[in-house]
């Protein structure tokens, strides 16, 4: 059986006295579309922060392509092929849209990018529909445009694994479909995608498998149909 692309093994994370993750384990296979859901505060963002390296986990280990990356700094993980978006977009405000991508292409995708960075950047922008705004200073974008920039910037890392953190929150139905289409296309081209979302129809449609977190623990894992009918999941979302 092939080694999974990502293996999270008993990850624990504490903030002072509060335990955000109490030993979460999961595996994501190469090329998979993986969904991560759970009520607010269940630890989803904390988990992907530990995976991307923004946070250091206090216990457990993380493996990427079989290598133990638990001690690896975040910027190196991105160079290895893990890219993430942020729930609240964090553009490089003083730079234009295309300059934002240039950073990722120059740094994270150094070993994978083609020599003509600008053409690659424009390709990615076209894919997300931001090519018309390439020269606009990123602090002046609208909310949905910033979300798309978040995604485009992570894509510019040419990652093997892309983690999308609630990219669709607060968007209209057609905007959600837009982003979903982009993620599908990315996955078809070979990128493994982990999607964190609250918009259930998006997660259900997109994911091949879903893991459910609640209060820092994984309470269920399986294909969407199974998750939908799982009693523990229902309780987590609706209460006792």
């Amino acid at each position, binding site marked *: 059986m092939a080694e999974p692309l990502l293996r999270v093994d008993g990850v624990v994370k504490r903030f002072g006295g509060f335990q955000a993750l109490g030993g979460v384990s999961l595996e994501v296979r190469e090329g998979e579309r993986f969904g991560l859901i759970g009520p607010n505060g269940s630890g989803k963002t904390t988990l992907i922060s530990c995976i*991307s*390296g*923004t946070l250091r986990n206090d216990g457990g280990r993380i493996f990427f392509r079989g290598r133990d990356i638990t001690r690896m*700094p*975040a*910027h*190196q993980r*991105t*160079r290895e092929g893990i*890219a*993430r978006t*942020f729930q609240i977009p*964090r*553009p*490089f*405000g*003083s*730079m234009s849209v295309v*300059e934002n991508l*240039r*950073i*990722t292409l*120059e*740094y*994270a*995708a*150094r070993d994978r990018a083609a020599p003509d960075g600008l053409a690659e950047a424009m390709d990615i922008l076209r894919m997300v529909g931001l090519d018309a705004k390439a020269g606009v200073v990123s602090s002046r974008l609208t909310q949905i445009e910033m979300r798309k920039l978040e995604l485009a*910037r*992570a894509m*510019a*890392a040419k990652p093997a694994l892309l983690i999308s953190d609630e990219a669709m929150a607060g968007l209209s139905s057609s905007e959600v479909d837009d982003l979903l289409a982009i993620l599908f296309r990315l996955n078809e081209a070979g990128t493994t995608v982990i999607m964190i979302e609250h918009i259930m129809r998006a997660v259900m449609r997109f994911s091949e498998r879903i893991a459910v977190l609640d209060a820092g623990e994984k309470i269920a894992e399986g294909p969407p149909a199974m998750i939908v009918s799982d009693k523990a999941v229902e309780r987590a979302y609706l209460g006792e």
Partner: protein
Amino acid sequence: MRGRWLLILAALLLAGAIVVTRTVDNRYVYFAGYGILQYVVLATAWNILGGYTGYVNFGTGGFFALGVYTSVFLIRAVKAPLPVQIVAAGLVAGLLGLGIGYLTLRLRGTFFSISTLALAVVLETIMVNWEYVGGARGTSVIRPAPMVPFDNYPSFLFVVMTLLALGAVATAWLIEHSKIGRGFAAIRDNEEAAECMGVPTLRLKLLATTVSGALMGVAGAPFPYYLTFVDPVSTFNLSYAVNSLAMPMVGGTTSWLGPVIGAILLGTVQQLATVTISSELNLLLVGLVLVAFVVLAPEGILGLVRRLARRGPA
């Protein structure tokens, strides 16, 4: 501005400086000019860390003084020539930047800033206690003969400082237009996102503090020959700390041009002012200008110009 044109401009400025020394006899011009050029170096150095990466150094005086005292030490110990002093000052101050960066940059930017402030005070204490370089009383320094084409030392130092200023600005320009400079800007805009987009933030921040510190030390190297007397009070003068902050703030922190504009503007005003008002009042005004700009016009003159340009002709 295209690089080639800037190089030509730089060569012209250097030539101009040399020509001035052959034609102008008034010593005061060289002293004032030296002072302003010194500030170009200090402001540019500060901005490489403060403006480009967003980490504020309050201890410019400490790095500058380290350069000064490195020169004093070398003059005392081995009668080292000026170029050696300059290189050594840069190395020592650069190492200090690296050291303090290594100790504090993994934490929040505010801890780095506070540490630079405390560092300056500690350095002053060390120099006050070190008798070899003069201690609290200070020490006199005898100038060597000026190099061949120059017939007096102040005019020679003026040209040296012109060269150093051009070098500092060139460094800033090169950084700004390079991958490293873009990395700096990413750190300034959003450090966490930069780290996630593959930018080795710690490494780049250390580079910035080292280069910035080194340039500040370099600015201090010719100081002993300039004043011929070095003591902690004049070397650790607070005006270096506040000016190296105010000048980039006034000029604009996102480009190499900002500190230059700020240094020339504020530097000239202060040179003129010291003749008419007390140095304390002068410093007070600089402080007020600093606060005014950081509150009302944080993007400096360059930012204001940019905003006006965007709105188009009236």
